[in-house]
């Protein structure tokens, strides 16, 4: 009978195995945690120091603000600037309008490309996807000339149109593949019931909501963060977006560290809050999309 001898051995192996496993599980933690510090530390330093008075920012940059060093003077300077609210409104209008119109126009085109077979279907799909690889910025000279002709320089409309054109190729490309997965029986049943093609389109749209959400987030972030087109197409005070406003403001106030740190914090916070709410869905949707 070998059981009495083998018994303890198994337990021993088990113990070693567990130690080795836990070591092995620990090493990734150290690397990931280390890199996380590198990723977050600079952001933390800015936010934390924005709540301190000037002497403390320079004297003890690594110390948390305490009763003595706490100060909101930077925020007062920044918020006294009336433009900040305008910049925010501009960014919200531009981002929201571009987003809604991109999703609407993009899903209409994707529906047509996936649902109907017509002459030049593949060619049109190819034409619309060129923009995935070729950045729209390379056409800046032509875009600015056209905006001058249409007198859309320094208008939010001009920005919105460019952002829609920029986002459409990828939106259509991804939505087409999602639209194809919607069962044909569904659409045929609606057709038999006498629904118009427009009606059927509105029935299909809710079915691809996850894809719309993912594309929405990915369209939004680059538009909100963009510096290039606001700088070139709409640099006026009335039309400047947050990103451009912060860039210009920081340029003027380089020596006022309280104001610089506070405006950086104010510009980051909305995006960070948005990210904390949606990061799970966002990353899940990229990973789901990439597996397809």
């Amino acid at each position, binding site marked *: 009978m070998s059981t009495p001898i083998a018994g303890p051995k198994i337990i021993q192996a088990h113990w070693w195995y567990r130690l080795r496993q836990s070591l092995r599980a620990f090493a*990734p*933690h150290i*690397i*990931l945690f280390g*890199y*996380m510090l590198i*990723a977050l530390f*600079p*952001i933390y*330093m*800015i936010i934390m120091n924005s709540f301190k008075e000037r002497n403390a920012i*320079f004297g003890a*940059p*690594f110390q948390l603000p305490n009763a003595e060093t706490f100060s909101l003077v930077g925020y007062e300077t920044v918020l006294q600037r009336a433009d900040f609210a305008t910049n925010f409104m501009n960014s919200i209008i531009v981002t929201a309008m571009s987003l809604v119109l991109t999703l609407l126009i*993009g899903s*209409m*085109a994707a529906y*047509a490309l996936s649902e109907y077979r*017509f*002459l030049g279907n593949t060619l049109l799909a190819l034409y*619309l996807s*060129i*923009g995935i*690889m*070729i*950045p*729209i*910025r*390379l*056409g*800046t*000279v*032509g*875009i600015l000339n*056209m905006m001058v002709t249409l007198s859309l320089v320094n208008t939010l409309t001009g920005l919105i149109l*460019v952002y*829609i*054109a920029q986002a*459409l190729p990828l939106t259509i490309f991804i939505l087409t593949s999602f639209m194809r997965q919607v069962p044909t029986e569904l659409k045929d049943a609606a057709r038999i019931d006498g629904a*118009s*093609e*427009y009606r059927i389109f509105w029935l299909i749209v809710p079915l691809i909501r996850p894809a719309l959400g993912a594309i929405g987030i990915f369209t939004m972030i680059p538009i*909100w*963060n*963009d*510096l290039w087109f606001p700088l070139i197409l709409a640099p006026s005070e009335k039309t400047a977006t947050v*990103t451009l406003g*912060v*860039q210009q403001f*920081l340029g003027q106030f380089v020596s006022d*560290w309280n104001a610089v740190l506070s405006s*950086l914090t104010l*510009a980051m916070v909305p*995006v960070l809050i948005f*990210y904390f709410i949606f*990061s*799970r869905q966002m*990353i899940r949707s*990229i*990973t789901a999309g990439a597996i397809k």
Partner: protein
Amino acid sequence: MQQTKARKPFPTHVLVFLAPAVIIYSLFMVVPLLNSLRLSFYETGPQNQLTFVGLDNYINLFTNVNFAPRFWGALGNNIVFFLVHMLVQNPIALLLAALLATGGRGRGFYRSTLFMPTILSVVIIGFIWNLILSPLWGVAETMLSWVGLEQLFKPWLGLESTALVTVSLISVWQFVGIPMILFYAALIGIPEELTEAARVDGASGWSTFWRIKFPLILPTVGIVGILTYVGNFNAFDLIYTIKGANAGPEYSTDIMGTFFYRTYFGQQLQLGNPSMGATVAAMMFLIILVGVLIYLFTWQRRIQSYEL
């Protein structure tokens, strides 16, 4: 003409569905792009009148003392900028993705926090690092002194010899999240059975990764490569934020995007030149196109035959 849905009148609804997308995309992307390319064959006169000059603008760009050194300088710097991303950003991204893909506690948390810098505006990132590395504030210097290396500190962003690499590394720091997530998605998409078999055969985690997982995610490696290339040769915001349009010191951080901006809009002493700006943009277009074509015809082909 194919007719799959029989007994239908002329499909106006197809036109209605497609028209807005095709019109906006053509009008604000394709036409301006073609117009920019066309403008590179014309000269802009003092009253904005255009005269056809053939390839003169390109010859100018390659030989004129005002343009040629800046063009080659910007191209060279842009190549360095790209190489730093390929050699630092993408390997780090692969390592982080591989660790995230092993599963285990807190992975969701790490995934979200590691991606965070990527969602912030380049303008904000530029200023943050400008402050952190500033000798005036001394944060970087103090941190080096904790490990006794303060003598290594230099105003990296201000020195001609180090500014370009420093700016590139800031960009790497910000954008490492994108390749990380793409690699991660590819890695968790690998069927368990494939790696399970190797583990049963006693293969180590290291060799399982390089022999089985890495070859399977080669298509993603290609996508990451081409995305990095297109993004890098189109970059502008970070350098404009940190160093301004002049991309100092002494143009040492000048890349194609900042060179284009200066050529088109002009700078302190030099007037803007739309035709030459369009020529620079056309060169950027060519560079990106060459990269995309190489990717499509070599990498993707090889991958496809590999899968067969």
